[in-house]
């Protein structure tokens, strides 16, 4: 492990700082080596590592009370159902939703967006209607709408961004009309780091009565999210970005909207009564959870939320913002390095290009320093096209990253430059 520097425990504001070294002990994977070097995990925007609390919660389910949920009268099924529903309550509290009936478990953000596209918006769209998104969206908040437009004759509109990678709110406002049936906006951009003014977008949309869907995948591990304060209508998230397992996420939606939405997948769990003459559907949120759900995943997500709450999202944010500031400052001094995405309000994500070194080659060389970073288009090709780059390299930070790891990364960067540029 890289040594901690005094900066890792610097006090910030009125909050107790994170004890990053002790926190790292909760993440078994951080002890491993890669190519003979200590792992420096800077690919957190792709997926974060899991703490023991999450690993053990899932392990405990399989060891002690593995059973299907909402189906049996036996003790194991009761315990599994309680743990599963406890996670829904954990998520309700975490998002400050008014009812756990508003929380639908999905496979992740992507499935949550597809659920809204198919069940909410699909039946409402007519040819010529419009869906408004932004130029910095992840493919998950582009392609489902494109598919819907193809099916219905609706039109996808794109709100512009400026050269810093910030949403141009005034231009967005001009694109909202009576034809606009939904606005989709990413809370924190995975490719640029931009934190979008979601509450302002919602206020803007509210004037026209347009519902807003927020892609929160990248926000939940870094920002205190309060869906009622944001004023949005749909909020989508993925557990694996917030210290939970892969394959599980959720859609939060206003109760009245969910009540009005038909199911989108048929099967067990989502029904109340089935006969060949007809079927009565279950109440929300179960109506949208056909089939045996990802029970261990939901239990892992609940454990991740409790871990986040105990650790403190705001404390994590303070720590990550210091990492972001330090890395931004040091990287700005590297000759030939350009940071893509320089919004005033940024999450702990730095996309960049290095003159003369293709991101792919940089990724390979720096991997041999033990540093895991992401290269490519980050599932946001239109954003890459806006900045006229085919790909970037990206470092992204989490609660367990150390200031000294930034120097390991910069050494790798220097070697890549010497080899290739």
């Amino acid at each position: 492990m890289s040594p901690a520097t005094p900066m890792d425990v610097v006090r910030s504001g009125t909050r107790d700082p994170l004890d990053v070294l002790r926190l790292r002990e909760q993440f078994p994977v951080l002890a491993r080596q890669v190519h003979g070097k200590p792992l420096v995990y800077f690919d957190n925007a792709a997926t974060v590592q899991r703490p023991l609390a999450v690993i053990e919660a899932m392990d405990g389910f399989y060891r002690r009370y593995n059973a299907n949920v909402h189906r049996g009268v036996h003790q194991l099924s009761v315990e599994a159902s309680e743990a599963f529903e406890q996670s829904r309550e954990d998520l309700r509290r975490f998002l400050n939703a008014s009812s756990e009936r508003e929380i639908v478990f999905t496979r992740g953000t992507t499935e949550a967006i597809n659920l809204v596209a198919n069940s909410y918006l699909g039946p409402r769209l007519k040819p010529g209607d419009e869906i408004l998104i932004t130029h910095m969206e992840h493919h998950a908040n582009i392609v489902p709408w494109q598919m819907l437009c193809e099916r219905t004759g609706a039109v996808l509109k794109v709100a512009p961004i400026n050269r810093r990678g910030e949403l141009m709110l005034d231009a967005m406002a001009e694109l909202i009309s009576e034809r606009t049936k939904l606005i989709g906006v990413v809370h924190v951009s995975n490719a640029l780091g931009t934190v979008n003014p979601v509450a302002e977008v919602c206020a803007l949309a509210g004037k026209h009565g347009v519902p807003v869907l927020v892609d929160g995948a990248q926000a939940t591990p870094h920002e205190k999210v309060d869906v009622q304060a944001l004023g949005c209508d749909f909020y989508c998230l993925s557990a694996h970005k917030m210290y939970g397992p892969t394959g599980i996420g959720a859609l939060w939606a206003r109760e009245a909207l969910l009540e009005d939405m038909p199911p989108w997948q048929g099967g067990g769990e989502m029904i109340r009564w089935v006969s060949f003459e007809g079927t009565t559907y279950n109440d929300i949120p179960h109506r949208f959870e056909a089939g045996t759900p990802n029970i261990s995943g939901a239990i892992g997500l609940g454990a991740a939320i409790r871990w986040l709450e105990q650790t403190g999202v705001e404390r994590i944010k303070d720590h990550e913002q210091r990492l972001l500031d330090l890395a931004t400052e040091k990287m700005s001094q590297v000759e030939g390095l350009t940071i893509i995405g320089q919004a005033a309000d940024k999450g702990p994500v730095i996309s960049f290009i290095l003159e003369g070194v293709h991101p792919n080659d940089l990724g390979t060389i720096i991997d041999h320093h033990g540093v895991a970073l992401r290269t490519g288009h980050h599932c946001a090709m239109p954003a890459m096209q806006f900045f006229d780059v085919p790909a970037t390299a990206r470092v992204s930070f989490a609660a367990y990253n150390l200031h000294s790891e930034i120097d390991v990364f910069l050494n790798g960067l220097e070697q890549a430059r010497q080899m290739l540029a």
Partner: protein
Amino acid sequence: MALARLYQQVILDHNRSPRHFGRLADVTHSARGLDGLCGDDILVELQVADGRIKAAMFSGTACAVTTASASMLMDWLEGRGLGEIEAAVARFESLLADPELPDAPDLGAINHLRAVAAFPARVRNALLPWQTVVRALSGSA
């Protein structure tokens, strides 16, 4: 060490000064090779006459592995009969897959690209120009 083998002088040289780089006049066959995930985007242009590749050029932006692979391949292609290409592609693929195989003398400098076999995530980069040539020859300009 594998990293030094991958970024050896020959490959770096082809990356810095790619041969046959640019646009070709009188193109008979062409194809675009895209790897969205990596950001590689190349255009292969060929001039075929009398069953032979008279000229081969590539352009675009790509990583060092793709660029070096394209540069070496274009070099090798010029003057080849169309009947030779399919077997060469198959041989190149097996050279990348099996480190026990001896070098293929007729492929010349291309054998240096075998270093990529130690980097499974990068094999696709070495193959992209070859796949693009195959697609170009299966269609026309």
